[in-house]
């Protein structure tokens, strides 16, 4: 069934279709290769397929594995490797053997590298598969930010006491834990509200600088992923009318670098952190002339920072 989908996807890009038997073999090769996946591989492959290219190391891997499995050399048109590249990443997301944490990172890597096609989405290959890859982190994000419960009972109980034993509460009780969790979330929301109302935040003149600091704190200090699966809502409510202001990326980054101290600028570890890298070293990133609104910039940055936390 899956190899039929792969056959359709590959042959849609060819004049002379390749045989289904070969496609079935390619499907098997891809599944075998998913066993050794790591994030640096995904970063290379996703960057390549967003440029409508196939990464050389991927092509070599496919060719070698195929020859190893089937005892003959593989010869495919270039475009078939690009389709296989997206298919490989999709299969990683669907795999039962790959750790959920790694699958989440894979999904975020692809979402983050999609920035390279901002404003230029025509001609992206295998869009349906890429969207499926995106969706994995959307689904998982909802699971992390559990719905909150009322914590009034625990507050009433804990506040008058000076130690846990006095409360008479059972630490192993799931309901108690849920209330504690909700209380933590409320605490973080409170800290955020205090900060965004403070002069320290309001005195930042440039909204792009503001949103940079805001999302850094959301990810690194307030653990926003546990508070809400929807950072967009919060960024929008904090930045309000400034959300729609637009600037070229190169100008945005110049302003951020000028206004922030070195210690505030984050050095990224992931190659998929296109914006963070640009802010850190101001090198050419291929999308320097693209326009971003404050909100768009904030969202892309949030998810780059979120992925970086996996390496903290």
């Amino acid at each position, binding site marked *: 069934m899956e190899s039929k989908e792969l056959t359709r996807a590959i042959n849609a890009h*060819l*004049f002379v279709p390749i045989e289904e038997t070969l496609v079935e073999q390619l499907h098997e090769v891809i599944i075998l290769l998913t066993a050794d996946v790591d994030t640096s591989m995904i970063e290379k492959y996703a960057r390549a397929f967003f440029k409508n*290219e196939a990464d050389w190391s991927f092509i070599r891997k496919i060719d070698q594995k195929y020859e190893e499995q089937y005892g003959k050399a593989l010869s495919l048109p270039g*475009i078939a490797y690009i389709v296989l590249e997206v298919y490989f990443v999709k299969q990683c997301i669907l795999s039962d053997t790959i750790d959920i944490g790694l699958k989440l990172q894979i999904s975020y890597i692809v979402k983050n590298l*999609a920035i390279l096609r901002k404003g230029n989405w025509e001609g992206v290959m295998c869009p349906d598969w890429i969207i499926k890859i995106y969706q994995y982190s959307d689904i998982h994000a909802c699971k992390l930010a559990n719905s909150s419960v009322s914590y009034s009972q625990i507050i009433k109980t804990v506040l008058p006491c000076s130690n846990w034993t006095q409360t008479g509460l059972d630490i192993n009780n799931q309901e108690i834990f849920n209330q504690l969790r909700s209380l933590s979330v409320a605490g973080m929301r409170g800290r955020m509200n205090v900060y965004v109302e403070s002069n320290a935040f309001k005195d930042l003149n440039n909204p792009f600088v503001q949103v940079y600091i805001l999302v850094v704190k959301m990810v690194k200090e307030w653990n926003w992923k546990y508070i809400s699966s929807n950072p967009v*809502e919060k960024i929008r409510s904090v930045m309000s009318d400034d959300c729609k202001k637009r600037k070229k990326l190169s100008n945005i980054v110049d302003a951020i670098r000028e206004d922030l101290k070195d210690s505030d600028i984050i050095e990224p570890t992931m190659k998929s952190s296109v914006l963070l890298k640009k802010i850190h070293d101001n090198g050419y990133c291929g999308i320097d002339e693209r326009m971003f609104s404050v909100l768009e910039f904030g969202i892309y940055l949030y998810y780059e920072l979120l992925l970086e936390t996996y390496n903290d």
Partner: protein
Amino acid sequence: MTEVMAGEQVDQIMNMMNGTQGTTNASEAGSSKNSGQEFFCDAKSQSELNEFVNREKPKLVALVGFADYGKSTFIGSLYQQLIVNLNYGGYSFVDSDTYVGFERRVFLRRINDDNISDTKRNILGENDILVFNLRSVQGKLHQIIVSDKAGETYSKYISSDEEIKKDIVLQSADLILFFVDAELDCKSLAEHNLIAEKYESVLTRLKAKGKINEGTTYDVVFTKADKVNTDERKKKLAERRAKIEQLFVELTGTEAEGVYEVNSRDLNNESLNELFAKIISPKQPTEAVKELDWVKMEIEKNQ
């Protein structure tokens, strides 16, 4: 130069080019060529089409028409325009993997006298795939692939399912150009009817075999428009053109994107250049799937 001499001379030249000196039969020449005597940079075969698919599938244009309808003269003229003009319609010719295929068509076009067409442009069985590598003024590269088969191939389609089965081009073509010899069409009603019957037979079979689909993009090209040079002929052509257009609508299920009357030998012909511009323009990229812009989707969801 007599008609016979011109024809003999061309046959000799063709045989030399095909490495079959001494062969008098053009078909034999073709088959010797197909047994391995190809020129470097000659036209490619359909089985080699995937070689041109690298980062994207290039635009494929199929020239369809019976023998002597002017397909090869047409494409030879396009090649000449691109070679001669550094910037033709916003594009410059960079390279081709099939120079010899083009040169052969230009050569045969030149060597034939106006009133002589006793030598077939393309030999039956000869490779038909020609490739243009072009660059836009903005510096972007793209490829155009053209299929220019011998006209006899389409005659064979009338009676042979085997021949139709071998065709890979038509179902993949981004644009099909159906050629009609305008001079022949307005020569007599019998000729017009024969043209119509042949196309009816071919297209019916092609459609039945799934080689032409509903919604196929096509143009109708009336060649040798310069030969339609009297009022009477022009009147006849106008009537018969309408009938031919209607025939194509019935047979393909869709209207032609354009109908052109061209003189392929006149490189200043406006209609010709308009059609050339259409052929060499790059393929439109597939439409953006809006969900790919996940940030925009998130923003819209939260409005």
